[in-house]
């Protein structure tokens, strides 16, 4: 609807800015509160792992596909992780055709940034034959609805999908001539899982007035000139950081934002883990989009 218009009047903006100043935002949240998050994994059956996540009105679907490929020559003993983001026109008519591409590249670069470090995910576990074959994990993100704070929602959904990912076990056998052969296990339950403990989540801190908020709604995003996207792991390590938006920040507030990003990010990580483990241990019916 008209939310795609993306403009606010000066008075509305003022109302939001003063609210942030009072630590009481337009929907009653304090500056460091998240909106309600709903997550469900294993929603697309022909993927190796998938997750759907709703954060407020932001709706993300992630599918992970494991395919075999060649490793990078610089890293012969490691598998690969490829990100692709599609801002679907379903989310907003603005995204029709190539309209969503710019935003999609921004999001995939942000994902790339937090997964850049080798301590994030053990890529050597994805190696099949060094310098020969490896698993390539295609992480495909589909944005279905946009209600603010896209980056955080995407990172949550990606982590949930990676948690859900199962890679078939392979056995490499060498015949007499030293030719290596790859054999895929027939048993669908004979699978390998990924260790996602070190996978970071993005916490976006938006500077509004003199304070900053987490999980900005789209209205609040319009009031913010500068944002920090901070990757935070479960242990509180900062994994990737980027300033966005057309404004600037003074150094002191950057340090404060990093600190609150770390604090919120750790909680976010542990809550996500709890929810995912709860889902795995309960024999509940999948709800998906029919719910």
């Amino acid at each position: 609807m008209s939310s795609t218009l993306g403009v606010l009047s000066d008075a509305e903006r003022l109302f939001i800015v003063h609210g942030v100043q009072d630590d009481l935002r337009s929907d009653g949240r304090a500056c460091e509160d998240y909106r309600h998050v709903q997550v469900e994994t294993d929603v697309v059956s022909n993927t190796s792992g998938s997750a759907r996540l709703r954060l407020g009105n932001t709706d993300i679907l992630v599918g992970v596909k494991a395919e075999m490929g060649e490793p990078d020559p610089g890293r012969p003993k490691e598998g690969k992780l490829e990100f692709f983001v599609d801002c679907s026109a379903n989310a907003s008519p603005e995204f029709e055709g190539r309209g969503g591409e710019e935003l999609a590249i921004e999001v995939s670069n942000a994902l790339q940034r937090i997964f850049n470090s080798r301590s994030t995910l053990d890529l050597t576990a994805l190696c099949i034959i060094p310098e020969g074959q490896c698993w390539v994990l295609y992480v495909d993100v589909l944005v279905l609805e946009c209600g603010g704070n896209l980056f955080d929602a995407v990172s949550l959904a990606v982590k949930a999908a990676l948690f859900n990912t199962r890679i078939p076990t392979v056995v490499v056998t060498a015949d007499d001539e030293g030719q290596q052969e790859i054999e895929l296990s027939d048993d669908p339950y004979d699978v390998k899982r990924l260790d996602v403990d070190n996978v970071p989540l993005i916490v976006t801190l938006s500077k509004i007035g003199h304070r900053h908020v987490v999980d900005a709604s789209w209205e609040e995003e319009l009031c913010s000139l500068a944002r920090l996207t901070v990757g935070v792991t479960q242990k509180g390590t900062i994994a990737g950081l980027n300033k966005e938006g057309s404004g600037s920040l003074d150094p002191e507030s950057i340090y404060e934002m990093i600190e609150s990003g770390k604090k919120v990010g750790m909680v976010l990580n542990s809550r996500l883990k709890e929810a995912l483990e709860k889902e795995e241990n309960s024999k509940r019916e999948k709800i998906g989009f029919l719910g």
Partner: protein
Amino acid sequence: MAGLEIISDQGYRIDGRRSSELRKVCARMGVFTQADGSAYIEQGNTKALATVYGPHEVRKGRGKIQHDRAVVNCQFSMATFSTGERKSRPKGDRRSQEMSMHLRQTFEAVIVTELFPRSQIDIYVQILQADGGNYCACVNAATLAVIDAGIPMKDYVCACTAGFIQDSPLLDISYVEESAGAPFLTVAMMPKSEQIVLLEMNSRLHADNMEKVLDLATQGCKDVFAVLDRHVRDHVSESHALMTAS
């Protein structure tokens, strides 16, 4: 095809269906809040999502404004993870553009566009999982989404495929059956007025068999219609009850 029997000796198909049986259809209207209308449909393992925006002011490309009716704008895309082998692009390839065009033609035929001069209606469909009959799932999902958006249509549009394999017509072809290389027909029709809106076949079929397959496909469309109509009626009466109760 060697090694894979599409129809068993007992007359069952790979997924256990009879030859004139539809896959299970589940649907939901009003999946999203921000769009004017939205719907989700599952036909077996084929899953599609449709959203409708409008009728609204033409904001991009004012040149396409029609002074006597609304412009219908469609986009078909497939999630990169929707197919067995990963797709590299979700949209923009020839097949998707063709699908978008078909969808536009289909819905221009049923939406009462004369009521909305100078405005635009956007229909976006997204295949989340592909297992044959993608176009049909899209049409069916889009029909529900248009109804959800409260946009006047002359009738439902329901779509279904029918194929001809091992000398017998088969309804609602799945991906395995599709890739067996047998001819199949895609039909979109307005079930109440029994008019065909789209008919497509890209392979060779003996003219004598055409009628049989077409009959089966139209029957399939009516079966789909029965499921969709029940869902719409349930949805409307439930919401109506909630709204009048206050």
